[in-house]
């Protein structure tokens, strides 16, 4: 299943399969995560959460909890100095005040000597609610004007028409990050009146900003440290336990730890936006795209969080990796009471790429042109303009990734002695070979790299060299993706020293970019490179000075100072003669602008990456059972820093996308989530996983150290449409919504009435007027 990559503990530098510095500890169970942190004398926190999707809080009586054994502190909204937080828009209450707006919204918190006592106390708090009607349908939200952001994007001539048109409406579900480590963390009193907060973070400085603001503390009194993180995928951005723990710790004077259950982790946090997207492609008869019309509706929760960024991404990436001269695109991010929504791997792009790729195949069928060929004809090239009016001014290997994936050899046909584990449906499945059909699908994708739309993206890093070992201080959050290894490998290549370690991210360092938007390697990487380069200059100048040598004739290689011919002159440690060398450097990504300023010459997105996925499935159509056999993925990665890690990102992201295509749906009825633990929210197991073959297309990114580029989100963007394309090829069904459950693939029409009895929101037929009203008139 692997491409044959193995890690090498002795490898050093960019482009090598260096073994991660933490894999030894992880395989022995010695690596510490937020869930593992424990202080002596610590208290345990518990949270009381709203049982209603929308209600007025009439009264909160904390007294029953306060008098329970082992309880040291009970708090509600009135105890929060500044009761709002949020990354882009600060409209999220730390503790609900007069209203609750989603099931799971925090209302009160308790600190007690033991987690069971804390839970019992939280459950004893009496809250009187007046239940109110909830908005659960995003189209109703649109109608009611509950809109966070409306984006309108016109490009070229919006009235032009193509000889051939194809349209479709596509729906995606609410997906949970489902990282393995539940939400957890600890807050400790720190210094005089300050607080230290340790847990899983993606951006420690932003967490600090929000925590300090909520507590009305100066930021210098708040220290945020990133713990070991058990997976993030975009899901560790919002404040859940952080301010709660800080409040209780400051009040009690003791450390307070929170450890959420899986259900609480699912309810308390945000999820990927459910979406409804209509689009229409116009093309010439020989397959040239002429115009794109699209209407994009992203469901967000009752608080803005990052709503604006998601819909901005959607409207600009709905065009896919294609050059389209004219466009009429509108998008809305709307507020419902179904729970918070926000960033998840492929933020705001997974949904439109699914719609785009599905409809491109629709267009291909209408034209009678093959799907791969149609994509090649229209693939965006360097120098083309995006519909946002941004010029594609960076390497654009769209053809190489498409060709590489499309031309990959197909897997062998299944043998008669196929292992039961590979049967669609698993080991006890009735899917005998005679009922199984194999089919192939293809999808291409593009994603923005780095945060966009005028977000300031930069990192600062410090490298110090002492006694032959270098230490990197960089506040970039390691969340499992392997940044710690990338950082070391970059510093090894630049500095020429192999003994390098990196410190855990904390706010007592200069800020770094958030681990988000595929941006960490290409933002903190250059900062580390520059700092390492500066340290090398310092070292060689010092040595040259000491030994009357011209520093420009010296270099550092594999822990030795060497001359031009490579002859070793001294070890780095000897050469430094006890001196410590240190440099701090900052790297800024280029400036970007919002979507709403098309005449501004700055780009909307820093850069883009491209990929393609050729997916093979075996299906038992009668029962709708699926086994994804193989995915061949080619991805434009700039420059591979670590091939094992890069392969792992492509496989992991693609599998997550496969989960979204086949089985991941956090369902709700009337604002109440139905499947809130892992017995019923399903992610792919080792039985479900296909074979992965990955290919890296390396066209170095200009202006970035070593030409590196981001890569972590794009795999999740290309895989749902690739799986669906294969399922459509197998079944001939339109399959316009995901996940595709067995009964959808088997073509069974469920009776809406029965679904209503089961408490499920059934498809109600044509959507209400508000959605129809936003459609362009027929061209």
């Amino acid at each position: 299943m692997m491409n044959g990559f193995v890690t090498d503990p002795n490898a050093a530098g960019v482009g090598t399969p260096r073994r991660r510095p933490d894999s030894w500890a992880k395989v022995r169970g010695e690596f510490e995560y937020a869930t593992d942190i424990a202080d002596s004398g610590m208290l345990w926190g518990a949270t009381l959460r709203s049982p209603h999707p929308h209600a007025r809080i009439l009264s909160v009586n904390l007294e029953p909890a306060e008098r329970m054994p082992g309880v040291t502190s009970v708090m509600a909204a009135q105890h929060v100095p500044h009761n709002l937080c949020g990354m882009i828009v600060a409209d999220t209450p730390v503790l609900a005040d007069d209203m609750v707006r989603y099931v799971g919204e925090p209302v009160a918190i308790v600190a007690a000597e033991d987690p069971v006592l804390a839970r019992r106390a939280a459950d004893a708090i009496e809250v009187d609610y007046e239940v109110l009607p909830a908005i659960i349908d995003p189209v109703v939200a649109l109608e009611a004007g509950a809109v966070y952001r409306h984006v309108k994007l016109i490009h070229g001539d919006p009235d032009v028409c193509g000889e051939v048109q194809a349209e479709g409406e596509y729906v995606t579900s609410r997906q949970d990050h489902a990282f393995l480590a539940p939400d957890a963390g600890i807050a400790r009193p720190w210094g005089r009146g300050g607080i230290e907060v340790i847990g899983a973070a993606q951006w420690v400085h932003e967490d600090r900003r929000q925590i300090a603001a909520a507590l009305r503390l100066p930021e210098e009194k708040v220290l945020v440290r990133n713990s070991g993180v058990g997976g993030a995928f975009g899901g560790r951005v919002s404040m859940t336990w952080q301010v709660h723990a800080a409040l209780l710790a400051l009040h009690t004077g003791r450390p307070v730890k929170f450890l959420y259950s899986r259900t609480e982790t699912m309810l308390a946090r945000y999820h990927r936006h459910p979406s409804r997207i209509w689009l229409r492609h116009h093309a010439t008869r020989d397959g040239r795209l002429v115009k794109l019309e699209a209407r994009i509706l992203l469901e967000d929760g009752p608080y803005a969080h990052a709503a604006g960024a998601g819909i901005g991404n959607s409207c600009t990436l709905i065009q896919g990796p294609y050059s389209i001269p004219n466009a009429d695109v509108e998008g809305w991010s709307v507020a419902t009471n179904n729970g918070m929504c926000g960033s998840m791997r492929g933020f705001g792009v997974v949904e439109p790429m699914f719609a785009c790729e599905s409809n491109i195949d629709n267009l291909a069928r209408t034209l009678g042109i093959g799907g791969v060929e149609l994509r090649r004809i229209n693939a965006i090239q360097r120098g083309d303009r995006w519909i946002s009016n941004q010029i594609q001014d960076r390497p654009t290997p769209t053809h190489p990734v498409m060709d590489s994936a499309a031309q990959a050899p197909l897997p062998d046909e299944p043998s008669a002695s196929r292992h039961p584990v590979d049967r669609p449906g698993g080991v006890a499945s009735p899917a005998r070979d005679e009922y199984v059909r194999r089919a192939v699908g293809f999808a291409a994708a593009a994603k923005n790299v780095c945060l966009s739309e005028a977000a300031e993206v930069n990192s600062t890093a410090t490298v110090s060299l002492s006694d032959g070992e270098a230490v990197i201080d960089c506040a970039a959050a390691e969340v499992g993706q392997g940044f710690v290894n990338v950082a070391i490998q970059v510093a090894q290549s630049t500095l020429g020293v192999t003994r390098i370690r990196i410190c855990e991210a904390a706010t007592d360092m200069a800020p770094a970019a958030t681990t988000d938007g595929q941006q960490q390697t290409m933002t903190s990487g250059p900062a580390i490179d520059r700092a390492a380069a500066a340290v090398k200059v310092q070292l060689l100048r010092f040595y040259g000075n000491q030994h009357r040598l011209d520093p420009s004739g010296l270099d550092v290689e594999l822990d030795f100072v060497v001359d031009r011919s490579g002859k070793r002159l001294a070890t780095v440690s000897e050469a430094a003669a006890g001196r410590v060398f240190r440099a701090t450097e900052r790297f800024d990504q280029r400036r970007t602008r919002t979507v709403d300023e098309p005449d501004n010459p700055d780009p909307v997105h820093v850069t883009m990456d491209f990929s393609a996925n050729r997916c093979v499935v075996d299906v038992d159509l009668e029962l709708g059972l699926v086994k994804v056999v193989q995915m061949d993925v080619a991805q434009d990665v700039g420059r591979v820093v670590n091939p094992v890690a890069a392969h792992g990102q492509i496989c992991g992201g693609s599998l997550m996308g496969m989960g979204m295509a086949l089985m991941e749906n956090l369902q709700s009825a009337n604002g109440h989530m139905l499947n809130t633990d892992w017995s019923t929210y399903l992610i792919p197991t080792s039985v479900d996983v296909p074979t992965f073959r990955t290919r890296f297309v390396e066209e170095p990114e200009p202006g970035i150290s070593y030409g590196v580029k981001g890569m972590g989100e794009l795999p999740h963007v290309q895989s749902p449409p690739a799986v669906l394309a294969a399922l459509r090829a197998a079944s001939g069904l339109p399959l316009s919504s995901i996940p595709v459950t067995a009964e959808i693939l088997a073509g069974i029409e469920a009776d809406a009435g029965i679904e209503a009895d089961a408490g499920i929101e059934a498809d109600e037929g044509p959507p209400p007027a508000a959605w129809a009203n936003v459609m362009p008139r027929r061209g």
Partner: protein
Amino acid sequence: MTGILLTPDNLTDAVGALLRHPHAQLVAGGTDVVADLNRGRPATGLLSLRGLAELTGIHYKDGRWCLGAMTTIADVRANADLAPQASALGQAARSLGSRQIRNRATVGGNICGGGSDRTLIPVLLAYDATVDVVGPEGSRTQALSDLLASSGASLAVGEILTAVSFSVASGPHRYYRIGPRNALCYATVSVTLVVDEPTRSVRVALGGVAETAVRAPAAEALAGAGIDWQRRRVDADVAGAFGVVAAEAAQPVSDFVASAQYRRHAVEVMARRALKHLFEEGIGE
């Protein structure tokens, strides 16, 4: 609220303890009960069956298998003779949960547990299994089907299921299940087919299509009459009709996993295939 953990080491004590603590939950393997505790269900006392040697063991005597209620699913799989003979049971055991779960989940817990995964019940129904129950009134042996019909496999306070027994018919068996992913999930629908060649009789049980698992007597009769016993073959028409009639025995409900229509459709397809390929090289262990 106080609670207690009871760990009797013999059946009589266990029954007495249950009577004294009617709110205590029976814990067999723990895969259902402890999961519910972890979900936040308050504990109201727990009585562990682990110490009861009377509930362990797999025995074969006079053509009948007898499984102690505390037999784990892993024990079922590991027994060198049981799974090959009772191949539907073996296949069901293989498909249940994961290795970790199978090392703890028990036959008795799977029958009485009340959790979603009651994988074994349709298989045991198809084997015409009987259950032994011990309680304050004494002990009794009862057809599993009776127990399901009268109480849905919930026992009266103080009663403990101690063993399951069945004979294994001589003939091919099939167990099929499907679910929302290819492993580690509750079965959406299952179909068990057990054929007794010497008596030319067929037993069919369906899971996931009613409150409890059900037999499909009309389908059984159709199959018994329609199979070509002499030549060990099944006509496509017979298999097709069998599927349709088996589906009629299903009274499924819709839930967020699957609709009633799909469950009924799945029964038809799975039953048809099970019969059609009955005498062919199986998909089996």
